[in-house]
């Protein structure tokens, strides 16, 4: 025979302060746990969505990032003439040869400088990235010192807003538009005309060559062709893979640090639950004796106390999760270790994180409640009744 559920709930309601404090402890742990996972998920989503599966990024072998890479014009021309590249409007090949550099700009709020990616793009560059839309202003005219800034850069850095000017490479560049790239990594970049950038930075070569595959499934052939060509010292990656790789270190760092912190913190919360449940058992010794005398089995008692602890954990988990879900409104901007450039991303709440957080909360309740529940179940009827 089971004890009614309402009996369990009422026990929790009987000591409001204690229940609230215990649940609060667990809520804080779940809050930290969930926010950290959300941060890592947000970072990964931003960078994974930056790439498109049919696009290929070519950089110098071993250089890892576009900024460190260098491709001279001769090699870029060879890549451009490879078979298997898609053609766009007017029959032009969808290839963009881009110089990518970092400049340091002061942040709007703190005036502290941070590194921003400046990308020189060609008309094909826009065609390769259909997710980029101008939300304010217009596209830069080719051959001029005009640039457009991603939403995050425009909001976060001085001089990068619409109609403002940024100064780099001994020139003033007018920001004629702000673009939205659908919360991808491009939101943290400034774009201008590729040839203008090459001149301004006195570069002879490009940083990367990006092209669209005519047939996405033939990536391996194209990759092999590039990497086997003795004239080329380059490597090719699918754009999705390229950007996912760039989120790896930071996402791992956040996840590792966050999970270890959550696990250590949960010790505190579990102890809180244990204290509460032990007190709950001690205060109801007589009651437990009566229940046993009435014929409730040890299993029923064990279950009742365990469910009480699980409910406590669940309540804490829900509160923590609700608090964490508000974090979705916040966007974080920090330096990505791998690219050395500023990257803006936000907290992303995924179903997996909801499940993991609630599971974590219930597990804390279980661990905290098991020993006290076992003590309650082990009591001898006579002793328990006498204690009352």
């Amino acid at each position, binding site marked *: 025979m089971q004890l009614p559920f309402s009996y369990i709930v009422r026990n929790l309601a009987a000591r409001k*302060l*204690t229940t609230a*404090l*215990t649940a*609060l*402890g667990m809520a*804080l*742990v779940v*809050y*930290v746990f969930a926010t950290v996972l959300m*941060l890592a998920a947000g970072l990964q989503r931003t960078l994974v969505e930056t790439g498109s599966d049919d696009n290929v990024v070519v950089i*110098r*072998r*071993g*250089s*890892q*990032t576009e*900024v*460190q890479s260098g491709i001279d014009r001769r090699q870029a021309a060879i890549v451009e003439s490879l078979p298997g590249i898609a053609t766009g409007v007017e029959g032009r090949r969808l290839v963009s040869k881009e110089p990518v*550099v*970092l*400049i*340091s700009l002061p942040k709007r709020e*703190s005036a*502290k*400088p*941070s*590194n921003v990616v400046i990308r020189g793009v060609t008309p094909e560059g826009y065609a390769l990235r259909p997710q980029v839309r101008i939300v304010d202003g217009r596209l830069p005219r080719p051959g001029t010192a005009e640039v457009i800034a991603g939403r995050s850069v425009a909001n976060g850095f001085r001089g990068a807003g619409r109609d403002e000017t940024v100064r*780099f*490479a*001994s020139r003033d560049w007018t920001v004629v538009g702000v673009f939205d790239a659908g919360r991808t990594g491009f939101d943290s970049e400034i774009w201008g005309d590729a040839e203008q950038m090459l001149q301004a*930075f*006195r570069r*002879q070569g490009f940083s990367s060559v990006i092209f669209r595959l005519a047939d996405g499934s033939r990536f391996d052939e194209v990759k092999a062709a590039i990497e086997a060509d003795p004239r080329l*010292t380059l490597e090719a990656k699918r754009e999705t893979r390229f950007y996912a790789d760039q989120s790896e270190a930071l996402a791992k760092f*956040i996840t590792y*640090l966050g999970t270890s*912190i959550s696990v*250590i*913190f949960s*010790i*505190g*919360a579990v*102890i*809180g639950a*244990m*204290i*509460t449940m*032990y*007190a709950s058992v001690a*205060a109801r010794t007589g009651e437990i004796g009566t229940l046993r005398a009435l014929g409730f089995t040890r299993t029923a008692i064990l279950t009742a106390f365990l469910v009480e602890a699980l409910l406590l954990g669940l309540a804490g988990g829900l509160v923590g999760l609700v608090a964490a879900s508000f974090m979705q409104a916040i966007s*974080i*901007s*920090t*330096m990505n*270790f791998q690219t*050395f450039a*500023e990257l803006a991303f936000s907290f992303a709440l995924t179903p997996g994180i909801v499940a993991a957080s609630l599971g974590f909360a219930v597990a804390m309740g279980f661990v905290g409640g098991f020993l006290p529940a076992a003590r309650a179940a082990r009591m001898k009827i006579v002793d328990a009744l006498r204690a009352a």
Partner: protein
Amino acid sequence: MLVLRNLFRHKLRTLLTALGIVVAIASFGILRTIVDAWYAGANASSSARLVTRSSVSLVFPLPLTYAQKLRQVDGVESVAAVNWFGGVYISERNFFPQFAIQAPAYLAMYPEILLDDAERKAFYTDRQGAIAGRKLADQYGWKVGDAIPLKGTIFPGTWTFTLRGIYDGADKTVDTSTFFFHWEYLNESVKKAFPRRGDQAGLYVVRIRDPDQAAAVSQAVDAMFANSLAETLTETEKAFQLSFVAMTEAILVAIQAVSYVVILIIMAVMANTMAMTARERYAEYATLKAIGFSAPFVAGLIVAESLGLALVAGGLGIAITFPLAYAFADAMGSLFPVFFVSEGTVALQLGAALVVGAVAAAIPAWRAARIRIVDGLRAVA
């Protein structure tokens, strides 16, 4: 005496609460130490050193000719070219900082890098030679004479260096997980492969005669190169290091915030313990008041019990922070080159334990002090 007895009335509960506080205070300490480690580079910097780099950003080099011009600036003692190498040792997981330096000038500017004379000589005479910090050498089991291959990410190709010395730090704030080799070797090889990229320095470290002149010298340097093809940005080494910290500030702020969350968690747990304890004893407190003890005395009993528990457990937490930090630094390897528990951290931990004890006692003490004798005697736990 009564306080002590009270503490041991519920042995298990006291023990559990104490355990919670120990864990919380220790993890608070570790998190603070991680934040400190972030600032290690800035704290170890000298006010007599300036860093001159391209004003556009660190990825743009400066011409080698600037070195001579820098030396002519009033107040400048010596100049050394430095390049970030960014090579990969075996696999990308093995990250450690590598710098190409103009060795004699650079090492003379950093007296905190301790290298014995024989090793120093061997390093100076071998163009492909390199030196590594003690921590780095221990991590990979390097010995003097070992060949160390690095795959270049910025400078293509595989570069092999011979380890000629292992340096120690003058004190524990010195980063001993860095790898140094000859800038001249890098420059020559680069010149051969990419003539256009030769004779360029990533940045210059400048030693000045009088640290008070740092601002004036910086301005003089930047003014000299203003409107040139490579404008410079000169700042003190500390400001330079802090600019790196600022770039990852968001993460730092998060860790700091989280370190306070653990204190909040344990505060909730401890407040719960004290609330339960006090509730069970209302009858006793009423009795104490009935026989003439004042309300502040009764409240004092609870506060003393709470503070006593928090401080003893907090002390234990502080004590285990040290071995924990040691183990953590060991596990992290070169990610946190400088990692030790500072006095400031210990003071913060102690403060946190005090606050937890005081806050947890507040409501129960207030209630016990205000309780009416009749109600208290009637109360059931």
